[in-house]
């Protein structure tokens, strides 16, 4: 990772593009025109941010609901702390899993230290996949739970002011 530091120009570009790129022939010129930069300057900045990992990627994010992947369950696992890296990497490599993280426990209400978002066409498929993971972990699975979302209360994405 480089020692990239956001300056005012970057900030303007981020603000102008965090909702998305305009669908026009020359999108970077269009973004630049909005904030007083040339298309070249915009591209140069975006490339620098890609290189620094500040932008994960430029591209499309499909709405998984619209594509029929209607179910996603947040599977949460209590696994031995000393094995969490090894187990996390295994689970993260599964093709139906996104967002695999180690997070802190909050005992007694929350005893799980590993989170893996499991996707599927329906709830049943998700549950089967969770069982696959449980099977894979064997006795390292000291307990797990799947939390399905019953309602999206807010979804605005990441924003900077």
């Amino acid at each position, binding site marked *: 990772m480089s020692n990239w530091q956001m300056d005012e120009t970057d900030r303007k570009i981020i603000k102008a593009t965090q909702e998305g790129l305009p*669908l026009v022939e020359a999108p970077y010129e269009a973004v630049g025109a909005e904030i007083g930069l040339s298309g070249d300057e915009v591209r140069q900045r975006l490339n620098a941010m890609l290189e620094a990992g500040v932008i994960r990627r430029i591209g*499309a*994010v499909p*709405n998984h609901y619209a594509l029929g992947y209607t179910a996603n369950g947040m599977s949460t696992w209590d696994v031995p702390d000393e094995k969490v890296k090894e187990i996390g990497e295994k689970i993260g490599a599964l093709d139906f899993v996104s*967002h695999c993280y180690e997070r802190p426990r909050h005992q007694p209400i929350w005893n799980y230290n590993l989170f893996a978002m499991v996707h599927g066409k329906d709830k049943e498929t998700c549950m089967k996949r969770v069982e696959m993971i449980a099977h894979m972990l064997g006795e390292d699975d000291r307990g797990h739970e799947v939390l399905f979302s019953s309602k999206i209360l807010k979804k605005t994405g990441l924003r900077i*002011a």
Partner: protein
Amino acid sequence: MRRKIDPIELDDLDRQLINELQNGFPVSERPFHDVAKQLGSDEKTVLAKLTRLRESGVLSRFGPMYHAERMGGGLTLAALSIPEDDFDRVNDIVNAFPEVAHNYKREHELNMWFVLATETPERVEECCHEITEATGYQVYNMPKKQEFFIGLRFDV
């Protein structure tokens, strides 16, 4: 309840675009032209297709995906345990925080789960504290300690 967006018919080019553009998008003068060329189509068609995919909600986003922490900000997942009869009141308070990027109701004793994206790392703790004060419920802050994998492709 969150239900499906209007299902729209997808043709081969739609599918190719959805699959291809999850990998990345050129940073060039005429990126749609470049994409079109690669897929054996033309710029106009690709732009029209993508406009339709975005307007119909099949694509929820098209553009740069920023990484909050590397922009110098803070990010966390946090949860609340709220009695059902107080849920709406708390929901309004939580959603009113501009730092709350996503918020989901989930079936668990911890029944509200939200993502906080803040301009500075310090702001995460402050925000959790403010939400606890404003709602009267303890915020369980669960910042990630390690990340194992990010990114899931939805092939169509």
